[in-house]
């Protein structure tokens, strides 16, 4: 879809990206007779770079998390801390401030109408953050449930669920997003009303409905591999029910990809909301989003007003970057496989 890409196009890569150290050529020698499972565990332990290296950039993660929190606080407190009014009455005094480049009075400059861009960025951040976290939550819950069910049961359940997932993947999400998000009064085929995408809940609903599939595929893929593992057979032999194996053995081993997908889904949802806004659907005037600010400023390319593109995009970029870095850091801390050392 967007592309920005679609939500979760790459989380698995980040999930498997282990930052591992050197090959354990020596470590696992002579352990063959202790069984394949043990050798596997030791090999993984041997490849673990150790506590000092395991969390690659704990400081970076903390800084990124702090940055996200700071942006969230700034967005929440926008009415208090913003230097101006996001949509002021266009008095001569306001218009006199028009087309000013970045300065101490207007750090992000002002637009053609004299509106302070920093103020509008702060209000746009509110939309981005609400959409991002809302979509991530809904897509993870739906996607993980579908993927776990399909991957564990296999057979016709897997076939059916994956065809449904395929159906959602085949739908050109962007086309549906443009149609549905462009409709001011959506209903579920006339049965009941849906929240319009011109407001945050409707946007969350639409983006989640078209964003859960990668999670389902990732979890299913992990389950297909994991359920063949020796410890699953061991657990079954010990009398564990299928439900218990899924919850206590398979899902914990999938936490890394799930957490990483969740964190990256936040970033992708933020990007997708911005893309829709750029294409002209999404929150409507007088509300602003970072994407709609960039869309409004598109004509300033090549003029001295091009800073109107630069700053909202920079904030958007840094926000998504920070969210993704937090996801990376969470993975390093939560992946049980890599804690086994």
């Amino acid at each position: 879809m967007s592309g920005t890409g679609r939500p979760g196009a790459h989380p698995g890569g980040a999930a498997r990206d282990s930052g591992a150290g050197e090959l354990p050529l020596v470590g696992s020698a002579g352990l063959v007779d202790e069984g394949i499972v043990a050798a596997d565990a030791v090999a993984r332990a041997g490849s673990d770079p150790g506590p000092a290296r395991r969390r690659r950039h704990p400081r970076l993660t903390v800084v990124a998390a702090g940055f996200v929190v700071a942006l969230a606080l700034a967005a929440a407190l926008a009415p208090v801390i913003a230097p101006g009014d996001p949509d002021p009455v266009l008095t001569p005094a306001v218009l006199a401030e028009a087309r000013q480049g970045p300065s101490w009075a207007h750090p992000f400059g002002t637009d053609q109408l004299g509106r302070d861009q920093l103020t509008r960025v702060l209000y746009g951040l509110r939309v981005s953050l609400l959409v991002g976290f809302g979509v991530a939550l809904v897509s993870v819950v739906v996607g993980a449930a579908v993927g776990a069910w399909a991957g564990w049961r296999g057979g016709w359940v897997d076939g059916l669920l994956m065809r449904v997932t395929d159906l959602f993947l085949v739908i050109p999400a962007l086309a549906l997003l443009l149609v549905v998000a462009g409709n001011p009064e959506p209903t579920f085929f006339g049965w009941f009303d849906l929240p319009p995408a011109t407001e945050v809940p409707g946007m969350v609903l639409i983006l989640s409905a078209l964003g859960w599939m990668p999670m389902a595929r990732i979890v299913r893929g992990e389950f297909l591999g994991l359920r063949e593992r020796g410890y699953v057979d061991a657990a079954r032999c010990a009398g564990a029910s299928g439900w218990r194996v899924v919850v206590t053995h398979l899902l914990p081993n999938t936490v890394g990809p799930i957490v990483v997908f969740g964190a990256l889904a936040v970033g992708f949802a933020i990007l997708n909301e911005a893309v829709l806004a750029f294409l002209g659907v999404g929150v409507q005037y007088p509300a602003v989003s970072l994407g709609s600010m960039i869309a409004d400023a598109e004509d300033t390319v090549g003029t001295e007003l091009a800073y109107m593109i630069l700053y909202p995009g920079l904030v958007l970029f840094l926000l998504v970057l920070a969210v993704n870095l937090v996801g990376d850091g969470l993975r390093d801390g939560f992946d049980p496989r890599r804690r086994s050392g």
Partner: protein
Amino acid sequence: MGRYVLRRVLVSIPVLVLASVLVFVVVRSFGVDPARARCATSRDPACIERVRERLGLDRPLAAQYLDEMRGVLTGDWGQSLRSDRSVAAAIGDALAETAPLVGWAMLVSLVAAVVIGVSGARRPGSRRDHTYGALAIAGLAVPTFWLGLLVIQLFTYDLPRWLGLDDPVLYSVPDPTGRGAVAGFRELALPVLVLSVQLVAGWSRYQRAALIDELQTDHVRTARAKGLTERRVVWKHGLRGASTSLVTVVALDAGALIGGVVITERVFSRPGMGTLLVNSVRDGDTRILIPWLLVAGAVVVVANLVADIGYAWLDPRVRVTGERPA
């Protein structure tokens, strides 16, 4: 294997049909009325009624859909509801514009991703690896449309000015004077660059992670123990197993590329499949949307099929039928 391919193709047909029904219903129920779009500039109050009747838009949706599909399946794709232009010609022209963009972007991205991924995986934790990692993280976070606008600003306006040129340099406009390699490069360089950034960022991380895992497996250890050169171990024994994840991701991204194409074509004002999609949605033009969807869907299905087969070919442990052992 032959039966598997046949089954996957047969299974994907109802998926595509279902998707086309869904799009048809959603666009016609939620979207713009094609007759209204067509009469937007007409002052005749009877225009909408007349157009509806002439295009058959007054009939039940199911009948319209079946007509549409009958036309598509018999090879008569009909005319656009908006402009009477031949749908086959419109989609053909759009494909011809988009194919080079996507083809070059995928080629450039694949080569770059494999080279970067291998380079990082051979020395995990090195300064070069960290640099690639940081660039990839940034590449995944950057909004494509913003990057596109910045790239235009930089290469069209800023760079020529810094170099002392008087006029901005236009790139993405097709050069009427020639279709040679230089003109082609000038037309495609910036769009391909913008479209590739996220692909390279994502794929190179996959490649790196998969290769690091692969280099710890027993068969690679065996290859090392045999005394093969490191180059041979990495590029032949390591890369084969590590390619499975990349193949899957590339196929998954085939569908995701549509969004990137829409934005890239929008930012660079290029005609093509993305522009056609946005315009057809805007006009409620299902006569174009349904064939568009079937063409794009077929590409995605084939890409995923090739990936599944490639997966089984690259990794003998994978069973394509998905049965569990007793």
